[in-house]
């Protein structure tokens, strides 16, 4: 076995905490706080990480922690490397006090990923539903808000899309959150013949919610994830799937008013050479992150320090790029809205290399052949790993899934399941 404790009751408690995190983080909110959505989710994550760390520490002192039998396993090396490099970058950060909080965030998620991956190895396919339940709840809320049927958080503002947030708190964040569970649900349709109708119905439900939400990055990520899944099911069918996807995309843009409006706006912006409008006013944070990377290419500005450094870089960029028509010149960005650039700016080239290596390690599980027959779990890992990695890489181009507790929880949970159920991990359990 890769990594488990020798205490069955400790394993059970650890699993309950992990499941509690992935189910409750995306749905928890506060009625009475200033920040009703993001902070409550972050606090539940902190509680989860503290409890998992405490139990693991107690097991360590009681000599009941099983060490990994395969230290060279990518699912151990990469999280360890991420934590180590984040620590180094934190020491060199431009604002160490801010960076410590981000380092703890990264460490907490790395620990949760490792524990989930270890505990999931001898569990069955239905544990995927723990990621789908909060997605379905959020999708239901989103659809009720979009249809102007019920919006308990923003009464009287139902018609404005900015207030259609599900339980996530922001429409773009909600779309970012829904992409991974939808891709996973689609993989379930092909991975297991039991409950197929349920999986198809749930996939359709989540897709409808995502279309209603119309976050562009999420829709493109969904398309990429679905196509990758079909490619893994049957390469011949993938060609037909690409054609159908193109027809659907054109149909969606033509007949669905919000997307049609965005298309028309984008064509007007392009003909006026107002490229920042096409990118929703994000050239400034993108260029700021790039310049931060150029100034500190190895260590970056430090985890969590993009928002600290944004002010002086933004002033420099608006001076430097006066000829470029820039939107959002008065917006103070706390995130880059592009996790690729954010990781590059905050942790330098080695940090970005680790980020890419993690995605490749996850995605590669789809192309590993199993010596034994496998089962629905191995088939799910094969059909979901590459699509989830692709979907994540795409959505990280326009959003920031790593910085949000809800999307980080569900993405890392699904990545951990894919890692736990990949063929070599399964073979080690069967040994």
């Amino acid at each position: 076995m890769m990594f488990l404790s020798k205490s069955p009751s400790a394993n059970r408690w650890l699993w309950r905490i992990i499941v509690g995190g992935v189910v409750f983080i995306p749905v928890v909110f506060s009625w009475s706080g200033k920040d009703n959505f993001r902070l409550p989710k972050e606090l539940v994550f902190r509680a989860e990480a503290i409890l998992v760390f405490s139990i693991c520490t107690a097991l360590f002192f009681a000599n009941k922690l099983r060490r990994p039998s395969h230290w060279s396993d990518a699912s151990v090396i990469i999280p360890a490397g991420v934590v180590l490099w984040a620590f180094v970058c934190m020491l060199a950060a431009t604002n160490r006090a801010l960076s410590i909080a981000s380092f703890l965030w990264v460490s907490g998620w790395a620990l949760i990923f490792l524990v989930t991956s270890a505990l999931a190895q001898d569990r069955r396919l239905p544990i995927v539903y723990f990621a789908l339940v909060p997605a379905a709840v959020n999708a239901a809320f989103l659809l009720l808000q979009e249809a102007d049927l019920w919006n308990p958080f923003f009464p009287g503002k139902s018609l404005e899309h900015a207030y259609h947030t599900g339980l996530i708190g922001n429409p773009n964040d909600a779309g970012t959150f829904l992409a991974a569970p939808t891709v996973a649900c689609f993989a379930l349709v092909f991975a297991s013949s039991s409950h197929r109708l349920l999986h198809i119905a749930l996939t359709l439900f989540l897709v409808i919610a995502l279309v209603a939400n119309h976050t562009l990055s999420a829709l493109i990520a969904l398309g990429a994830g679905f196509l990758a899944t079909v490619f893994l099911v049957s390469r011949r069918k993938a060609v037909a799937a690409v054609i159908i996807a193109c027809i659907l995309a054109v149909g969606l843009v033509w007949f669905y008013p919000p997307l049609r409006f965005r298309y028309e706006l984008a064509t007007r912006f392009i003909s006026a050479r107002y490229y920042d409008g096409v990118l929703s006013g994000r050239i400034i944070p993108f260029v700021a992150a790039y310049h931060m990377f150029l100034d500190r290419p190895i260590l970056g500005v430090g985890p969590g320090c993009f928002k600290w450094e944004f002010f002086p870089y933004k002033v420099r960029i608006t001076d430097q790029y006066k000829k470029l028509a820039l939107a959002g010149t008065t917006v103070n960005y706390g995130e880059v809205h592009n996790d690729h650039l954010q990781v590059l700016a905050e942790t330098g080239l080695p940090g970005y290399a680790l980020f890419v290596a993690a995605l490749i390690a996850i995605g590669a599980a789809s192309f590993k052949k199993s010596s034994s027959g496998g089962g629905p779990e191995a088939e799910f890992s094969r059909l979901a790993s590459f699509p989830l990695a692709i979907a994540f890489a795409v959505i990280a181009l326009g959003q920031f899934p790593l910085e949000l507790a809800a999307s980080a929880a569900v993405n890392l949970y699904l990545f951990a399941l894919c890692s736990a159920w990949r063929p070599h991990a399964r073979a080690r359990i069967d040994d």
Partner: protein
Amino acid sequence: MTTGLAAALVALAALYSLYRWCYLPWRCNAFERTAERTLLLTENAEGPVRRATIARENLERTLQSIAHCPHDLDLYMIAGASFRQLERSSEAIPMYEAALTLDRRPEIYLNLGQAEAEANRISDAVRHLATAVIFDPSLISEVPGQLQPSVRAFVQARSSSRSSR
């Protein structure tokens, strides 16, 4: 025995961590909403005595919350606004300076500059107000009228020196 002791220590540490990093931030988040409403209430309260009483109570609770959540930027902004409502602008300045160690936003520079202007620290006020205006030129309308020419001149001088480089 050692294992039991270690487990007990770990359990205590976990409880403290949950209290410090989960429960207290939750309480501070709930307080911030009340405190911001109270700031508005103070503006609309009838009579200077009533306004001062509300502002003083709000300030005391905000300073207690800062002790619990020292990395919460919004609490420093609320404390700064409360000090200014009590016409203690010189005491508001350290609150905004503390906020600037947590984040650099134009609104923090703007409030700091306004507090410095009220405390008659004009050169610091012009510098910080100009910093806010450099980020967002529309904030010039928030600059006290008598300082607008100085702030404009500061911004212009900075812009000229950058162009000549």
